């Protein structure tokens, strides 16, 4: 009997499935691309403003910024629009004052704090070989405890910090030490009760500075004037 064919479950034929799935994929793809393109300029603008605000905060004399990659082979390269960092490159910002002279270098560092990562932007004075200050870019530290790194006067008095490039590394490793046990100008005195977050700041600065400063040293002359 032909009942056998009618007992079969109602399966969607493969071609219909592929056609429908293709249609849905096309619709979704279109929506995503439209959203991406539509918001692209606004997002880039937001990012630019955020970077500017952060850099101007740590390099107060700066009036304009040029972004660079310090590549693994020691060369410098200006960052193109929306360009991704090549492997092993460190991004830094050169801040220039109104006269076009170098006011300071700013770079990002990140290290694990109490909860999640603490991202900071720190500034380096290439003439005096000092880390002059830092500002927090993103942190989820405990309010009232970890976030004291931005307001605690004793902690902020740690800066400026000595950071002299010496060959492939720094002359002295930048370290956070226990509260009230700082003996050298390249050490950071932690905030009592907020040791973990303080250590994160020290580690963030050290990790980036170790990679960046030796690569910068040979290029300081060419960076002095705004290109």
């Amino acid at each position, binding site marked *: 009997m032909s009942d056998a064919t009618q007992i079969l479950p109602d399966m*969607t034929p493969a071609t219909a*499935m592929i056609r429908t799935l293709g249609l*849905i994929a096309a619709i*979704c793809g279109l*929506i995503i691309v439209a*959203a991406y393109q539509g918001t692209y300029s606004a997002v880039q603008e937001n990012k630019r403003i955020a970077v500017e605000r952060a850099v101007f905060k740590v390099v107060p004399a700066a009036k304009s910024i040029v972004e660079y990659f310090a590549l693994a082979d020691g060369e410098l390269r200006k960052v193109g629009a929306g360009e991704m960092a090549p492997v092993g490159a460190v991004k830094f910002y050169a801040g220039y004052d109104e006269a076009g002279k170098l006011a300071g270098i700013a770079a990002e560092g990140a290290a694990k704090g109490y909860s999640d990562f603490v991202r900071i932007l720190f500034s380096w004075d290439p003439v005096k070989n000092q880390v002059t200050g830092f500002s927090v870019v993103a942190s989820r530290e405990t309010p009232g405890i970890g976030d004291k790194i931005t307001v605690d006067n004793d902690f902020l008095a740690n800066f400026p910090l000595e950071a002299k490039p010496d060959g492939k590394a720094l002359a002295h490793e930048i370290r956070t030490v226990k509260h009230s046990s700082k003996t050298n100008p390249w050490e950071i005195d932690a905030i009592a009760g907020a040791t973990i977050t303080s250590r994160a700041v020290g580690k963030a600065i050290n990790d980036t500075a170790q990679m960046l400063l030796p690569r910068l040293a040979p290029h300081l002359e060419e960076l002095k004037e705004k290109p």
Partner: protein
Amino acid sequence: MSQTTVSTWEEFMEGVWRQNPVFVMVLGMCPVLAVTVSGINALSMGVATTFVLVCSCGLISLLRKMIPKEVRIATYIVIIATFVTVVDYVIQAVSLALYDALGAFIQLIVVNCIILGRAEAHASKTPPLPAMTNALGMGIGFTIGLLALGCVREILGAGTLFGLSLFGTGFQPWVVMVLPPGGFFVLGAWLLVFAAWERRKQRKLAAQGGGVQHV
């Protein structure tokens, strides 16, 4: 035979109250506890989730007759992921600070059980307009739940509400409230309050019902 079609208002209110995703169904907990450290974050997350809910349910409902049932879950997920990506970029364009505050949980809206659950249970069987109304109700219910948590945690843990300081500088914030354990405690407390309130309502109804029967 009179068929009571669920009115639009009932569709809407069902998500807000009777099947409130946070307090009744206890679904989609991950963002609820993670981002409710302040009122603003809670509100933004609620709005973002509502947007994704409404749009996904709308599109799924529109396409419901076409989606092959063997791969329906995967299709729903792809559609939901599409709108989450849209929300992700829109938030970045509006405010990078908000984007950083909400973090990975914007993209985690994709796996919010509420959205998939609604799509499977409701949007795949209902025409677009009622589906979207119900989704809107659910989203608003979710936002109310988020706000309830966010406001309590912000007031107790930081002494502010939506950034406005409430108690002045002498206030010692109850810091644990804005930390993970606080999230668990506050939600547990809210559920307790709801359970107690529900119990009282049942008792009242039972007393009334018993009274009528005795007549």
